[in-house]
């Protein structure tokens, strides 16, 4: 990745964050976690995934499965920037004339599978990866999990099964933003040491800074991490990344901002002032 490529990624990620912020009003969205995984999703679609808007049904494509479905604003923002959907469609958020709501669904071109209920898409990804193995094909399956999602038993069941079946075409990325819905993961159901946990299930594990494109390049450009093992990339991220006024805050999980707040946050994203947020801090969904 040269300097101009990196610059392009930074600019795309910035525009994706603008989309996410604009979706956080008139009904709102899960902004904190969308912002934490935005850099990873932009990077994967831009640099790693063998897929393109005109090849969303190509049987040889790489699969990206968003298991933590509430982060879909990051995917839709990326889709708008890369031409999977017309960006104007994001204006249909939470309107009944379109399918753009709080969780992903297959009415949106490029979405491989719906999610929303946590702990599902690792197993769906295992099925896709098993078929690819049966066909001796070369595509890869990327599954993004949330760290809070790791509370789900089905994740650990899937980790055992993927390890047993030596699915080295399966790559899991954990958006390790440190929070589950209402509090820090380590205050509720501690997850650490996470690398050791996954390694003991037979996975090849790396841990990176989930906001550093250089760090991503290092691990994602040479997959699988190990032959005959599924790959696990734990990406340390910041909830609400890019907006200091909500970064790493437990009470900005789901938000429904006013139009004025959105304007202030867009300024804040570009380093202009700090948003004076007045809307309710914690919506429980």
């Amino acid at each position, binding site marked *: 990745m040269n300097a101009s490529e990196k610059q392009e990624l930074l600019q795309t990620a910035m525009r994706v964050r603008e989309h996410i912020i604009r979706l956080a009003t008139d009904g709102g969205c899960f902004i904190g976690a969308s912002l934490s995984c935005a850099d990873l999703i932009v990077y994967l679609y831009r640099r790693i995934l063998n897929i393109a808007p005109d090849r969303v049904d190509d049987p040889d494509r790489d699969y990206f499965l968003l298991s933590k479905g509430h982060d879909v604003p990051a995917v839709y923002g990326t889709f708008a920037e890369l031409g999977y959907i017309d960006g104007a469609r994001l204006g249909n958020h939470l309107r009944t004339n379109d399918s753009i709501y709080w969780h992903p669904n297959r009415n949106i071109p490029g979405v491989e599978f*719906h999610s929303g209920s946590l702990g599902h898409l690792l197993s769906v990804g295992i099925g896709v990866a098993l078929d690819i193995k049966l066909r001796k094909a070369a595509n890869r399956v990327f599954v993004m999990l949330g760290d809070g999602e790791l509370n789900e038993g089905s994740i650990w069941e899937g980790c055992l099964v993927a390890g047993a079946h030596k699915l080295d075409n399966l790559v899991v990325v954990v958006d390790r933003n440190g929070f589950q819905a209402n509090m820090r993961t380590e205050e509720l159901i501690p997850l650490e040491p996470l690398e050791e946990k996954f390694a003991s299930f037979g996975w090849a594990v790396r841990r990176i800074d989930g906001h550093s494109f250089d760090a991503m390049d290092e691990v994602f450009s040479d997959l699988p991490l190990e032959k005959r093992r599924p790959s696990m990339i734990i990406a340390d991220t910041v909830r609400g990344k890019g907006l200091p006024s909500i970064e790493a805050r437990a009470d900005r999980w789901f938000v429904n901002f006013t139009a004025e707040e959105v304007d202030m946050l867009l300024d804040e994203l570009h380093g202009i002032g700090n948003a004076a947020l007045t809307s309710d801090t914690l919506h429980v969904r």
Partner: protein
Amino acid sequence: MHTMTYEELLREMTTENERVVIMTAENRAAIRNLPPHVGDRLIDVGISEMTMVGASAGLALRGRIPIVHALATFLTLRAFEFIRTDVGIPGLPVKLIGAVPGFLSDGNGPTHQAVEDIALMRGIPPMQVFAPADNDDMLEALPRIVASPFPAYVRFNALPAVTAHAPFAIGKAETLTDGNDVAILTYGFLLREALAAETLLNAEGLACRVINLRSLKPIDEETIAAAVRDCSLVVTLEDHFLTGGLTTILAELMMQQQLTADVLPIALKHRWFTPATLDRVLEHEGFTGSAIAVRILRALEGDRDKKPMLNHTSSLFKTYL
């Protein structure tokens, strides 16, 4: 009679159709000999029903038709949300085969009693539901179920056939005996007991219409509605909770078609059954042919208008009433 076994049919379907893959959560009793013949097209995920069903959806996304063989109770209960969410919402052609359903879990106890599986599976919008009467009925149905584009749940039943069967069609019932006195609607292996009851009741001068509802969803509304119209008493016979199964299906149909009838539900009324060997379970729970016949006679006896129909001097009547 089919000379084939379930295992041999799976082997044949897997060999002939490259879309078919077999999955299991280490429930190998009925598919023990498959591995050398189907190789890596048998995917055993170990005792992981959630992962199995989620992965079946992933395989179906790629064009496969997964035949998912597992114990009915853990398949439909442990993995329920995965079935509903990953298979049901997209309507993927995953074929769930639930082994030892209903009374067939005999001595296992309530943990293993799938007696709400029909209710759960029929509640998932695109899901088709089948309950073959015996091994022949199941082998007759499976190729058509696998060819259907919809997700399906099948109550596994490899018990030997007690009757010859008509060709299977999705959404069609099979009427085994004709009569207008009593209609016995049933599914699964209890057809055997329904036919035994029919023989006993026939000797009492009662003509019974025994209907094998091998396809529970879609259901054969026409055949059921005709039975409701024609027969003096309609019996639903099922090894399932009273709620959500055949009795509920009948009630819904009668309400929709504005039909009324005297109905005798023979089902598990809000309790699990007493575990024992199958024969003892049937005896204890009152699901043997003779117990069913007596329950029907009692129901008719309770209805004054129908009393003349009964032969009050018969041995069956005297023994049990």
